[in-house]
């Protein structure tokens, strides 16, 4: 799956989970840049990514995500 499409899809998931229409993600976006992206919503996002893309992540994998680009790369490697 194209990384650009993955970024678009996860942007939509962020908007839905964080209930914020204004979110615009880039590969460099980190949790510090997005209001409401905390431990609670992070897992909700992870579960939503898993369901949307039909994949599963390990705890180790998600601990290694330093920004949105790392999430996109991880999803891309599984799709």
């Amino acid at each position, binding site marked *: 799956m194209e990384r650009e499409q993955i970024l678009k899809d996860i942007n939509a998931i962020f908007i839905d989970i964080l209930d914020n229409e204004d979110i615009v993600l880039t590969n460099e976006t980190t*949790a*510090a840049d997005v209001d409401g992206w*905390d*431990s609670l919503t992070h897992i*909700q996002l992870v579960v939503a990514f898993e369901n949307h893309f039909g994949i599963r992540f390990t705890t180790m994998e998600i601990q290694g995500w*330093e920004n949105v680009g790392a999430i996109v790369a991880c999803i891309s490697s599984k799709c």
Partner: protein
Amino acid sequence: MLDKHLIRFATLEDVDAIMTFINENWKEGHLLATNKSFFLYEYQCGERINFALAIDVTNNKIVGLCGFIKNTEAYQNSCIWGSIWKVIKTDDPMLGIKILEYLHTQSDCKIFSSCGIAPKTIPIYQFLRFKTGKLNHYYRLNDKESYNIAKIVSKEIPEFVENIKVSFKEFNTFSDLQAHFDISSFSEALPYKDAWYLEKRYFNHPVYQYKIFGIDENLGQLNSILITREVAYNGVKVLRIVDFIGDYTQLAGIGYAIQQVMKKNDYEYVDLYAGGLQLDVIEQAGFQLKTDADLNCIPNYFEPFVQENTAIHYFTTSEQDFLIFKGDGDQDRPNFIPQS
């Protein structure tokens, strides 16, 4: 990112900073943020303070924490109960989960659980492969003309299996309890609550007075105890069963004894939040399960009083049968300390 935060257990030197963190980030004016002696009662064990802390190494400030309450004096193989889990926003959205994992793996605990978790956090525990659930709420109404604490839409008082041989023996001192009840014989129970815990939690509580009843079946020794707390509101009283230790099948025979206690003290009702009990056992004692279809309201919050039904959710890492009661963790904790 991994080096920016240090996760470690707290010590006595951290107490003021933890209380400040709770005040600023959990709830302003919270009892655990304002009353140091109560904080120490809940979390101090010698030099140790039972909190895992995430520290921002650049400024040495607390950025996250999770407290815990243990069921045994020893840390090793204790069943522990998480309480007050809070992380402020950092650039690491996994920090809260790292604190939970640290507590789970570094505390030497046998089982890690929490009672009273927020429903919105359930996906986190499920992701961590912890078992989650909701405590059942059981109650038995006294037969009264009107109810002031409960809101009764449909008054139903179930029959119980009458067993007049079963009575309650009340214990007013811990030594009296120890003389009649061998707590250590339940060391294989899950969770196991040792003598140290029972004395501290229920006999030496700085605010609440608990009524501890042995279930006496005239066998010469007691095999089970009930821990209860009387709660009053507007001159009306209810009795809340907050913990149980022993052979829980004995609960089936307590209907008559409960009825006697309820009548004698004019309680409006007796209730019990529990997970892991078999419904038929508790029904034989004359309790009914509060279901979604039951429109009665049996309040849970009294500080302040809120006349609404409350669901209590939990998680546990236990893969075996595990009994959970409202008294576990910090669910039966005062919200304020009366001036008197």
